[in-house]
């Protein structure tokens, strides 16, 4: 059973910050979609006296393009992302990750800000956002700052957020049309599944060579991670089968997974290779001119 709480529902960011200020010394929690928080309250891991609900702050629920940047309010839901034309054209890997997250019910509640702030190593939206080199706009009653998503996580459930600070928005440079990406995940089942492992990649090919590439993994370390060693290896190279195989080998050394109730350390390590290889091969197959594709 849930313990009764005082429920606060601000409608603007200013009001939200005032409420946070007001409850500074109280036991409060910020409620986004609630798909993680409410479960933890039910399990009595969290027992707040106050809930500050963000769902009526309209400013936080916007998807916008601002001067070649994609700007996503923290309260944008997975369902909203999936239905966004702008994102399906420019951030397909984020859309793909949202499509594989939870169930329709969860996707209509779960928010991008919540998924990030929850800091689960298996949070599905984080690897694509890392691959898109996203940054976070953080705000507290006393200051605002922008940080790279990659520097946000400290460990499972742990972030650099101050106690009175929250994520206001997520932003990244709008990918150019010639960028390509992939998102792959393995779970215990085909839907409604927490990832055993996920991988996202975003790259720019120039004359058949990778001008740059960003690769990120979920559920293979204590936080979602960028695979910098793999990126460094691939930069400037053609994605030939031999190069892809070598990159996949490096990936195995990059990750540091654990065994838990969903999978094992060794399986996750192997899959970090397999999924990266499949992701890259998929891109090459899609990039090949018609007729060149081997069937």
């Amino acid at each position, binding site marked *: 059973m849930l313990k009764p709480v005082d429920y606060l529902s601000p409608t603007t960011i200013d009001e939200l910050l005032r409420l946070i200020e007001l409850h500074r010394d109280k036991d409060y929690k910020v409620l986004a979609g609630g798909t993680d928080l409410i*479960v933890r309250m039910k399990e009595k891991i969290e027992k707040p006296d106050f809930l500050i609900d963000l769902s009526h702050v309209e400013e936080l629920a916007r998807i916008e393009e601002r001067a070649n940047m994609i700007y996503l309010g923290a309260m944008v839901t997975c369902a909203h992302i999936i239905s966004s034309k702008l994102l399906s054209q420019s951030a397909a890997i984020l859309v793909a990750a949202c499509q594989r997250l939870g169930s329709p019910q969860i996707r209509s509640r779960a928010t991008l800000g919540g998924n990030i702030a929850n800091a689960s190593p298996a949070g599905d939206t984080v690897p694509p956002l890392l691959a898109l080199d996203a940054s976070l706009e953080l705000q507290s009653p006393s200051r605002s700052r922008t940080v790279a998503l990659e520097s946000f996580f400290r460990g499972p459930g742990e972030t650099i957020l101050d106690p009175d600070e929250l994520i206001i928005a997520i932003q990244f440079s709008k990918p150019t049309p010639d960028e390509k990406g992939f998102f792959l995940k*393995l779970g215990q089942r*085909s*839907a409604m599944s927490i990832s055993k492992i996920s991988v996202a990649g975003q790259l720019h090919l120039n004359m058949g060579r990778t001008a740059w590439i960003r690769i990120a993994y979920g559920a293979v370390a204590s936080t979602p991670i960028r695979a910098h060693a793999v990126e460094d290896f691939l930069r400037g190279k053609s994605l030939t089968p031999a190069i892809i195989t070598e990159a996949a080998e490096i990936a195995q050394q990059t990750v540091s997974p654990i065994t838990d*109730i969903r999978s094992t350390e060794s399986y996750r390590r192997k899959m970090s290779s397999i999924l990266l290889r499949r992701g890259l091969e998929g891109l090459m197959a899609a990039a090949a001119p018609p007729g060149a594709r081997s069937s």
Partner: protein
Amino acid sequence: MSQTRFVGKPIARIDALEKALGKTRFMSDLVFPNMLWGKVLRAAYPHARICRIDTSRSEQLPGVRCVLTHRHVMGLNGFGIVKPDQPVLCHDKVRYVGDAVALVAAETESIAEEALGLIQVDYDPLPVVEDPEEALSEYAPKVHEQGNLLLRTKLQKGDVKQGFTEADVTLEQRYSTQLFEHAFLETEGGIGIYDEESGVITVYCGSQYAFRDQLQIARALDWDPKKIRVCSSPVGGAFGAKDEITIQIYLALLAYYTRCPVKIVLSREESFISHVKRHPMRLDVRLGATKVGELKALDVRILSDTGAYASLGGPVLNLALEGAPGPYRIPHTHLLGRAVYTNNGMSGACRGFGATQSCFAMEITLDMMAEQLRIDPIELRLKNVLRRNDLSAIDHLIFTSVGIEETLKIARDSELWRTRDIRKRDFQPPIFYGVGVASEMQALGLGKGIPDFAGVSIELDRDGSFLLRQGCIEIGQGNLVCFLQMAAEVLQCDIERMRLTHGDTFASPDSGSVTASKSIYLVGNALYLAAKTLLQELERFASETIGEPMRYQECELVGPSRRIPLHELAQTAHSQGRQLKGEGHFVHPTSDKDYGDGLPHCLYSFITQVASVVVDAETGMVKVHDVLSIPDCGRAINPQGVEGQCEGGVVMGMSYALLEKVELQHGRFLTDNFSTYTLPTAADAPLTNKTVIVESMEPTNPFGAKGMAEPPNVAICPAILNAIYDAIGVRIFDIPVTPEKLLAEIERQRKI
């Protein structure tokens, strides 16, 4: 009964619309005035002595009406279908984390929960018995005073040593199965009410057998069973787990002590840790055959982990042994089983009832034998297939219908089986395609020496409609419409002209437990007798009243000069104070042999299942593509219902093969809800899931029916594992076959 109007037709379930609309009220949904909330304090340790229980602080909490411990149990402080070794409320010891130590009733659910936290129990923890093998060692801590062996059963036929000397090929393999959760939708919930004036205690709580609940409650409360009413239908799913008592005795005790209606609804987590699961078993199988594929000898040894209490652990072990040889003629067998107490939760009845485990082991062994002998797997099965009037592999006469041969022939001739090698070419490494087959023989009914019967009465109402009084419950399987179809056939009337009772001990005769796939067969027999008796009664009364010989025909009484509609006859009878009714009582036939403890059975359903899988050899992921289920359930009273059982059973069995496993660590559950215990979704179900029904007409049932509910979730598991082998040449002998396990095995075998 060759020409039928109702039997064999896909008539819509009478409970379908209200369930689809969400209108059905399950026992957990009921609400009464002045209702209190009950909660159960579960054990803090999987194995511990109880030194002291102090409820004083809890009792003083405002809003708490009563706090009960073992001292408040008026009768026998124990329950259990076979032997009552499970305490209602523990007094000196707890044996698993689901053990109940105290009960609370309070004005609100949150007060009741708070009150639980104020009960102080001092424990002296004991070593946890985790390994069933070690549990049998003389140095093992004792779960029960008399030792950790619940039951040892040995069955044999011929001379197994001789049999193996006659065999050209002998295969030996160890298998193991996991602890498996039923995952019914409705957690245990209901309400107890005590009426002081009449002395009647009513318990509304979904379960598989209201009439046995009534007796178990009466025994624990030292109460007159006639003054205990149990209403246990409809049930939001059970799959065997609600055959045993769950919360019924708690409800009765709390209602008695508070004089108020008391409601309990278990959370998923509490339900998960407290109710019985499917037994994990270790099975050693040795099978011998001649070069031409004649099965000669079978030796099976089973070690079954029954957990903390007996419940149905003994009968489950016995059915695993009886089912182990499958539907085959084997001249020499030796089957030995042991069921052992541990602190690993608690196991009991679960769809398949032991045959699930032994069929998995036997059907993979057979597949290996077929490969070894270079015989097609279906041909090997056909070569040894059991027929009616054969002696079984445990040496008893099978005098009832046997349709397994026909199911195998349909499997052999199916597109899925015939063209399997052609379809393999559609896949390229690392993706592989394979097809597997398996068959099963499922014992129906409770077996030799166990009371197994059904009573039914049918009354003519004053408006000319019929009231069919029977006691079986509706559990989601759709038996109620089948009862009406069978009755309509005999009474020659529309289904709409009938009502029926279900699962209420005050409304009908006892029609037996809904278990062992048996309600259609037993109730069908009893209602046939009741309907026939009622028709005679109608004709006699009509003849007396009219003064000429009257015959019943299509809801009319027809004589040489007159026709009377049934509703007129009903009015006449009513005005004279006559209740026209027919009663039927049927006792299950039994085997010629008696091996004790419910063995053997005498009536069997059969199934052959073919499954195709697509295996990703790099990720170890298996997708079940197509499934063909070919059950022999006797006459299919409602073919749509049979298909429903097959489709659901296939998904459940697929998940047993590939996905689900209850994880325990030192007697504590690591998986206790559907977030950690992962069930398949619609997206995981096979792409096609087809059913072809074989109807071997059963001579001991007037409609030819046998039973249906269990087999489709049994053979599918080994069929899938055999398909995985067909795809990639790797065998796994312990389920579930997770991608982690399969990939490790693929890599291990490549290294050799």
